[in-house]
């Protein structure tokens, strides 16, 4: 009995005979939007294994925050999602304000909403342009960047920076909006609204683009929830969850807006959600401009060196890429005892290892691009 020959397992033998190849995607590939490396094992055109490799941009901001004052930490937050840094500023300020017991005045809240929504538009425009390039449509990129530049100019007028703003501060905002700036913003809103239809004609409903993305990278609602996806990736699968609605902050409950939802969770649905969100953001900006309250833009009684009483807080906002949260622990000292970032890009990216398996090589970039990651936020 013991000498019986080992029977070869037919399935294994068949697999070993197949010619497998290892492809190293990234870390410098332009379509990975940063320094992401994906180790792909392919059999012909089909991917059998995908191992995302991250950490190239890890700067340890959670560690750095432990020896910096609360005001200094706002600067660190800019460096996570550098494409839309306003919500990063905001979420840290909200968490710290909860600890400190400070409440921002109404005008500051309205300015925060305007800034975050402008940043969402700028971020989605970048996605709109680069996703077109990923798929092979170069022209929309130029259109998107033309308008994105205008938003960045407005940011520059307001706070002097185009990418890392440090505009939203503990207890309010850095500077008040001048009437000239508000006039410029109104001008931009009026200019931008018709452009959205132009984008839809150019790319969203372009038959070639639709054919390329509509049946690719399907993510079911259960999968999206289980993987913890958030933002347009979750809503693209038809799950109606938006932190602005579920857990309103900065007076979002007073604004009228729709939450665009996708149907099947395909790459096109995720793209569509973002394209529609730009419309909603413009709607919110218009409402905020119409009823911008007068008053101070900074709360009184914000300490120069805050020492919040020992305690813990959690704040989360609907950032451009999803549900950005901060868990902050204070021991009563001058710097946060512990800061944990719930980074949406990091969590959204995790599903890549499962979803890429079985896809064709040419669809990898279509899926990767549609998740819309920023590696600064993935690695923190």
């Amino acid at each position, binding site marked *: 009995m013991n000498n019986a020959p080992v029977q070869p397992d037919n399935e294994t033998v068949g697999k070993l005979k197949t010619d497998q190849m290892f492809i190293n995607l990234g870390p410098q590939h332009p379509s990975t939007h940063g320094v992401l490396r994906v180790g792909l094992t392919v059999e012909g055109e089909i991917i059998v294994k995908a191992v995302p490799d991250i950490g190239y941009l890890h700067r340890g901001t959670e560690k750095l925050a432990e020896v910096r004052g609360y005001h200094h930490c706002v600067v660190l937050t800019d460096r996570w999602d550098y494409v839309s840094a306003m919500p990063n500023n905001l979420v840290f300020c909200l968490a710290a304000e909860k600890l400190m017991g400070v409440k921002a005045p109404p005008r500051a809240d309205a300015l925060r909403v305007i800034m975050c929504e402008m940043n969402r538009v700028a971020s989605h425009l970048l996605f709109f342009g680069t996703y077109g390039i990923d798929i092979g449509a170069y022209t929309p990129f130029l259109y998107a960047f033309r308008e994105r530049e205008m938003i960045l100019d407005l940011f520059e007028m307001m706070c002097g920076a185009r990418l890392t703003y440090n505009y939203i501060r503990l207890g309010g905002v850095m500077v008040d909006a001048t009437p000239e700036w508000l006039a410029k913003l109104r001008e931009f809103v009026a200019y931008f609204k018709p452009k959205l239809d132009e984008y839809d004609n150019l790319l969203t409903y372009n038959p070639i683009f639709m054919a390329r993305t509509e049946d690719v990278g399907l993510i079911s609602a259960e999968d999206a929830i289980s993987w913890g996806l958030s933002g347009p990736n979750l809503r693209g699968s038809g799950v109606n969850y938006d932190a602005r609605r579920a857990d309103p902050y900065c007076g979002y409950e007073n604004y009228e807006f729709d939450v665009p939802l996708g149907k099947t969770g395909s790459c096109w649905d995720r793209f569509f959600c973002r394209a529609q969100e730009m419309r909603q953001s413009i709607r919110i900006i218009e409402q905020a401009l119409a009823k911008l309250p007068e008053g101070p833009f900074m709360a009184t009684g914000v300490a120069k060196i805050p020492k919040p009483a020992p305690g813990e807080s959690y704040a989360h906002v609907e950032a451009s890429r999803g549900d950005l949260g901060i868990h902050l622990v204070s021991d009563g*000292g001058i710097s946060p005892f512990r800061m944990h970032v719930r980074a949406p890009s990091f969590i959204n990216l995790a599903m890549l290892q499962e979803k890429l398996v079985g896809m064709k090589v040419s669809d990898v970039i279509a899926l990767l691009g549609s998740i819309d990651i920023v590696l600064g936020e993935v690695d923190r």
Partner: protein
Amino acid sequence: MTQDELFASIQAKFPKIEKAAVPVKDYLTVRLATKDMLLPFATWLKQTGFDYLEMVSAVDFLGPVDMKGYIRQMNFNTFLPDGATPQIESAATPNYPYRPVIDLVWSFVSLKDKARVIVRLETPRDASSAPTLSGLFKAADWQEREIFDLFGVTYEGHPNLTKILTPDFLQGHPLRKDYAHVKDRYDE
């Protein structure tokens, strides 16, 4: 569902779970007595509608952070006169209960009810471990790897508990309060 109602329903099912002494502000925070309770509790939460694992985190309560964990001098400023102290240095706060404990934190969200429950578990610092939730929530996969990488917490049964953010040659777990940087080939 209000926080009290939610807590009452948790207590009815798991009488041993109590509210945390230091709550996370505005959200229901419960503390598990032992790590064996995590899996049944998480399974029950998932069935009750808390099917979205929002966050996996950890807090090291050892004490103020060790400055040896930083590569460069804090707030290095060429204009600072010799001997002047840097702006910020970690210092212990008097009367704060520092203890050799790593608190593990999970946050579960019910997308339907828009409710959130934050679960905490105290583990000893030298043998910090908990059962993995990656079988229930796929979102736990990378987030547990992150906490393993930065804190050295072992999640038992995790299919691929390897480093994720820090480079392979980095020794130690950087977010532990007593982490000290070991010089590697990229220093100097």
